[in-house]
């Protein structure tokens, strides 16, 4: 039985982690210029 609780806990922690990462990405302008990244990738050799 305790494995069910553990899995629930893990899923919530993972979900919260992904959400925090997303909030950080939005706040640090990661979504502002989605076009430039592909050019820049080719530039950095």
């Amino acid at each position, binding site marked *: 039985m305790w494995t*069910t609780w553990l899995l*629930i806990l893990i*899923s*919530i922690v993972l*979900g919260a982690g*992904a*959400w925090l990462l*997303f*909030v950080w990405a*939005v706040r640090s302008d990661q*979504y*502002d*210029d989605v*076009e*430039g990244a592909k*050019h*820049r990738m080719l*530039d950095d050799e």
Partner: protein
Amino acid sequence: MATCEHCLLPLDANTAIREEVGGREAFFCCPGCRSIYALLHAQGLAEFYRRRTGWVPGPPELFAADPDALSDCVVEREGEHEATLAISGIRCASCVWVIERYLGRKPGVSLVRVNHATGRAKIRFRPGSAGIAEIASWIRELGYAPHPCETGELEESLRREKRDLLLRFGTAAFLSMQVMTFTTALYAGYFQGIEPKFLAWFQWLSFALTTPVIFYSGYPFLRNTLAGIRNRAPGMDTLVFLGSFSAYAYSAAMLVVGGEVYFDTAGMIITLILLGRYLEAAARSRAKESIGRLVRLAPREARRRMGSGFGGHAPRTETVPVSSLRANDIIEIVPGEKIPADGIVIEGASEADESTLTGEAGPVAKGEGSAVCTGTVNGSGRLVVRVTQTGKETVLSRIVRAVEEAQARKAPVQRHADRVVGWFVPAVIAVAALTLGARLQWGDPPLRAILVAISVLVVACPCALGLATPLAVFIGSNAARAQGILVRGGDVLEAGASVTEVFLDKTGTLTYGRPCLAHVDGFGLAPREVLRLAASLEAPSEHPIAKAIGRGVAPGELLDVSAFKAHAGLGVEGIVGGRRLFLGHAKFLSLNGVPVTGAQEERFREISEARRTAVFLADEKQVLGLLSSVDELRGEAEESVRLLKKEGYRVRMVTGDSGPVASRIGKEAGIDLVQSRVTPVEKAEIIGKARNAGGRVMMIGDGVNDAPALTEARVGMAMGRGTDIALESADAVLMTNDLRLIPRFLSISRKTMRVIRQNLAWAFSYNLVAIPLAVSGNLHPILSAALMAASSLMVVGNSMRLRKA
């Protein structure tokens, strides 16, 4: 012809700079280009020249912004300073690369990001080791110009809105996915049995995870619902909130009473509708950015004379921002420059291209005492102008104000979905109330009656409804974009579907907006030879007619010209193949003692009557030929008009140009309804009249004079090469200036609208099934979820068909 090593502009043999670089010769057009070239090589950034593709030849930017204005762009962030600047002169992706590389290795600079789409740069630096003035000078060293970034309030609020929407959507998506996990367990439990302990836990966890979705992600819907109730105008948001909140409240009640919960429905409604909103906002802001790139930075600088310049001293000039010009200032305007203020010519002779302001295709002669207008383009001569009006009083500003007034008057297009929802919401509330009343009447216990009534509200909100419009619009505008049509918003496609009348501007829209060679007469000389001599003679000239003649001859055929001299407003002279040649009006020839015969005069008059611009070519003894040029109809204009007429649209032309030219172009294009000699304000009035007569009007134009009409029309469409103000006031832009895109746009609009209608019908058919079940009290959560998923998938699949529109 040799070109400058840096900027790729053709070289002028007299002023070119020659230099030995790495054992080979390199030529530069100016010291600026040479120093940039040297700088890039010294810095190991010469790769710039190898990697650049799509570079449009053009000189380095020289504009120096006011340092105070630039320091206003600096904000403090995380202990460092961050400057957001608009950079002009960016021509290709390689420019972004070179700016990021060069600035990035300067001491004190920690981050450089240049957005190629918007030309915006974000530069972060440590205030101790670098300053904004230094950063500006580094950018200028590379041949680009930093400007203070005018983040308009509108633009900033749009950006904030988009980011806010993304956060709310993302949060809702993460939480709803978690809720889905538990809901799946609950479904399994429904069929196989589940321990009551787990049932309670999963339901309570779902409750905890759904609460932020309703109150944080769903907050905009809550706010608009309250506003909608206050204004007694229930809209889409009212329906969304009603549906999701009643599902949430019903489920919360079930937690206590015991029963099935609908938390997943509550969360998914909000998530999917936020996704739709975000897609729509993203499409709109992308179109806005692309249009922003077309809007060139307006002339913000002027050459003002310092002091009087009398008393034998050559007058010195200083470069000042246009905003600091005052009436009675004396300014100089060099050939090809945009005129920065309204004024009176006090010295010099030239001609101005006023077509964007008046619609008149030909150049207008300017001499002492003529008035010049802001935003028109100077021709081949240098002018000295006394400023009469600046800023808000110029002719240009008056038109801008007319546009703003029209914009304020313009009622937003009522979206199809809103129209449907307008009657749907009251109907749903009525059904819910009737259910409650009827069940109480027939002796149901009050709690049971209330729960059934709420379940009607829950299923009434189809989440496919939230996706129906935005998804179709998103895919439709991407299809339009792929073909070169930028669409500013979803309502534009909806409005485009209802258009019945198409109004076209003439100069620059139906025609190329520049003179093209029309006819060559030879007098005792083959026309081919006349053209070759004229093109050789005109090669150094910047005059629009000279360029038209030049396009008629292959570059290899040109002869060398020496002793070239341009007499502004009259003509040019020079020595070609050892012969002294003149090209210009009859008056210019007689000034140089060349006789013009009666027959030649007659031919000249004939051409002028057809409103073509003609020039004579002569040597020192006699007239050799006559060349005429005209603003030609675009190659695809006639075909486009025919297509539009075939589709059943009424096509009309409105122009500021005179009657004979207008009717000739109208006839060539196949347009019978032509209105000429129309002022900018009258153009807008004509559109307004057509609208009041019941027509749904689309206007296509490019000039300043079209801007009020573009705003007045239901759909305003600007040519990609149009003036800034036309681009700004248009709802859609033809990137490639191809008129055949007008019928394409209208067809994409109609297809999009058809898909929207089908989507809405699908979304509502879900309700047709679900509402009766809810009223009878037999709706099960699993059935409700399955129906919802099916109708959403149907909407997504149907919208995808637009990709091939």
